[in-house]
């Protein structure tokens, strides 16, 4: 019972390990993360309540004066209006009668009912630490609607004046201070760039918001996937971490496909590495806390837990003491705590559930073992974040770039020998052939999706999905 209560509690390591997977990982959804992100940036807005009443409380009349009387006074008209606005503002169905998030066409729709398990604010901290101009850019993004921006107008008419939304104070340091960690944070922050592409980019507010929402969520997922390992190992290069091989063919891939199997093995390796890293961090914290030799056996757990995790709440500390029992060795205490906080299968399920919401992990359902994959929108997000609008980059160079930026292995690599990184997962010859086939499958998919161009001389270039406006 204690174990299930302690599972996924973030208060033990939150101060040391950012982007920890929490106990409510099922709630982490793109709209919640975006809401949390904007809430951390500008704070909640009172008018968000009216939007919730409009969309999810049919028994109450929304206090939005700009809705014409002809709609408000006719119950049938009002019901139809609610449904229509539901399609515009609640397409992800993540708004509930008591809380939740909408598709925020205005900052006035940012709610204080955060259901993102803390991811939104951490994404904001990371992005803000890497891009000082982020705040004003978001502010201007949500500013006065430009000509033809009917969604912007709708937002400002429904929520009124948003001038009170001021940027909040935020962290100035990236979440990880190691060499690779700092670079990784910057590269992750660049996933937001498609939403703010200055040189044209997405012209419509809806597309840019979709890009912002996807970007925030992708940052959250990729960060949580690696955070513990980066924090613990303080790596210099990606080869210092567990290899993340992503299936490049049409997701989710056949179960007996060698590339699918390798992706599943890689998933398991990454998850195991995160769990090991979390355990090691716990060990370090516990060992740092000196317990007097005279401490009675019955009091050891109380002293060591209270000393090592002073930020954890009393309730969490009590649960931890129960989980530890009368063990008096730091390593064993860490084992028990790790088992209670991150029991077998917890991280696997969590990463899979979170990743599948944007098409970065799968399969969606069924008995297939979890693996990393890239659905087309996620693939487009990666290419938009790595290729400037209107430009292109050689396909193999792009694969190298994706590895160097995100540690994602999609092919054999030119600058890095990715076969060697995956050698422990299968025999080298098999890995080499899988990587080649995976690269080719991805290339064909990208050409078909319009994310790459194949030239007559066999050259393939990845193009930005964003249009350049001259």
């Amino acid at each position, binding site marked *: 019972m204690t174990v299930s209560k302690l599972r996924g509690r973030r208060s033990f390591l939150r101060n040391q390990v950012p982007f920890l997977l929490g106990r409510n990982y099922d709630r982490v959804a*793109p*709209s919640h993360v975006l809401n949390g992100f904007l809430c951390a940036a500008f704070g909640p807005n009172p008018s968000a309540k009216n939007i919730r009443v409009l969309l999810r409380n049919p028994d109450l009349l929304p206090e939005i004066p*700009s*809705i*014409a009387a*002809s*709609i408000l006074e006719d119950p049938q*008209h009002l019901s*139809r*209006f609610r*449904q*229509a606005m539901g*399609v*515009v503002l609640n*397409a*992800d*169905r*993540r708004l509930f009668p008591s809380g939740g998030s909408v598709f925020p066409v205005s900052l006035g729709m940012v709610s204080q009912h955060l259901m993102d398990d803390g991811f939104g604010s951490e994404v904001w901290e990371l992005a803000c630490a890497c891009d000082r101009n982020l705040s004003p850019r978001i502010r201007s993004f949500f500013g006065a609607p430009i*000509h*033809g*921006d*009917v*969604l912007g*107008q*709708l937002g*400002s*008419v*429904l929520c*009124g004046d948003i001038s009170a939304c001021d940027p909040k104070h935020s962290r100035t340091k990236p979440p990880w201070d190691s060499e690779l960690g700092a670079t990784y944070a910057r590269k992750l922050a660049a996933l937001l760039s498609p939403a703010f592409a200055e040189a044209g980019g*997405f*012209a*419509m507010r*809806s*597309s840019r*918001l*979709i890009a912002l*929402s*996807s970007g925030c*969520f992708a940052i959250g997922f990729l960060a949580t996937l690696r955070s513990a390992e980066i924090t613990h190992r303080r790596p210099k290069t990606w080869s210092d971490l567990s290899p993340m091989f992503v299936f490049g063919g049409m*997701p989710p891939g056949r179960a007996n496909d060698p590339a699918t199997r390798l992706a599943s093995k890689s998933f398991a390796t990454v998850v195991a590495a995160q769990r090991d890293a979390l355990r090691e961090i716990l060990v370090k914290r516990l060992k740092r806390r000196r317990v007097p030799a005279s401490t009675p056996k019955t009091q050891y757990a109380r002293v060591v837990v209270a000393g090592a995790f002073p930020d954890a709440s009393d309730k969490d500390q009590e649960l931890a003491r129960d989980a530890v029992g009368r063990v008096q060795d730091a390593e064993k205490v860490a084992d028990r705590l790790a088992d209670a906080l991150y029991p077998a299968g917890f991280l696997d399920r969590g990463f899979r559930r979170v990743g*599948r*919401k*944007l098409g970065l992990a799968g399969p*969606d*359902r069924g008995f297939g073992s979890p693996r990393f994959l890239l*659905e*087309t929108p996620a693939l487009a997000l990666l290419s938009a974040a790595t290729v400037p609008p209107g430009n292109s980059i050689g396909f193999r160079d792009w694969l190298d770039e994706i590895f160097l930026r995100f540690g994602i292995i999609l092919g054999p690599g030119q600058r890095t020998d990715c076969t060697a990184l995956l050698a422990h997962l299968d025999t080298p010859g098999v890995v080499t052939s899988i990587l080649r086939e995976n690269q080719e499958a991805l290339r064909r998919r990208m050409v*078909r*999706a*319009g994310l790459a*161009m194949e*030239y*007559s*001389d*066999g*050259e393939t*270039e990845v193009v930005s*999905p964003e*249009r350049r*406006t001259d």
Partner: protein
Amino acid sequence: MPYGETTTKPHVLMVTDATELDRKDRIDLLATKPRSRRGLVVAINEGPLKEAASHRSGDTYKKASEMLHRGRQSLDVALDANAPTVIDMAAFDPIEQGVVGDLLGLDMVNVVVDGSSCSCDPSDCPRRRAWNQLSSPEVRSRVAEVVKLAQLQQQDWLFREVWDLVADLALGGSCDEDPPTSTWFWRLFYGDTSLSHAIAQAVSPGTKALPGVDAHLYYADWAAEGLRLLDGVDFISLSKPDLRTARHQWLRLQVFLLGEQHDPAARVIGEHEGSFLQAAYRLDLTTLLAGINSYMTFGLQAPARTQLDLWTSHQVERRTDLTAGLVRLGNAPAADFAIGKSHVVLNHPNTGLGIEGSGRFLVHHKSSSSLDLTHDILSLLQTGRSRRISDRAHADLDWHLLRFFDSVLTTEAHESEIEVTLFNFDRLTAETRGYRVSDSPPLIEANQ
């Protein structure tokens, strides 16, 4: 004058393969221009072209590369006197241009057929007799039209494959077989080339009914009206057509291809009546726009034919099914669209050259947007939209279409009107609701 030689006389420099040059030489090629040089022709692959374009002194290459990409998507390229004329050989489609007909009429090919070794008497050789039929320009034109049908199977065909077909038509098969497999009309469908396989699949000549013809063929009634071929083209008969099905089919092919009252290409295209494949093939814009409109609304609403509805979906999260509604932010009149083919000759003062590639695109010139009308996309449009996100081909097509709409919306968005269509999949109905949004005074009201 070939590259590498020098002269002080007026000349046009020919670089037959700039891929062989290193990057510096490619840049120098355009940077230095001797007075005697009247022109420069450079053949270059796209990889080296892009490489040269990325150099800071590679402006001309950059312009060429940009034109190439616009032209390939059927987008207009403004005439620029300071930019080179670009001929995109990769986009040139020999089948689309009816090159097969021209090749079959070449004297050189006739000489090859005449000189081919054969065990039979040249005056009664089936290969040679059949080849004589091709002396008629009308026959060659029909053959070229039939060869175009291979595009229904595969969009891009190379010159190499066209030459393979012509070589096979001229020299393939044997006169000693029963029926003779050396005749061009047999080889057109049953030859050994990838092109003839595609033609056979697209046309499936054995399944085409020829009312009133089969009986005459079976009873060897060669004088029958139904067996009359095009003017000046002789029908080649075989004895005992009732003996073997293949003989019957051999005779039948002549009537199907060259019969006075037949038009094989139109007939095959006609079988796809109403399909988007046919619409793209015949550049029928209204059918295609109606198809896209209908696809987006799951076929639950009568589609507009004179405009393209521009939708967006705010669903970001991947769930098992699509959301039951779409937001329409604008629409673009059909007059602003065209079904275009990729351009082969770009930045040439004579715009009426009419040389086009095989790739077909739905183009919105105002916003410089284009949607690639590949066979995959057209057949998915034909199938109808799927609600399930696990139908990945449809989920990807949705993504493609929404990107295209987004691009067109940059010029066609409604200023103050938003429309929402809600689908009821239980009752198979759809309902659209429109609202006007005004800034001053702030007001949202329903459209009447």
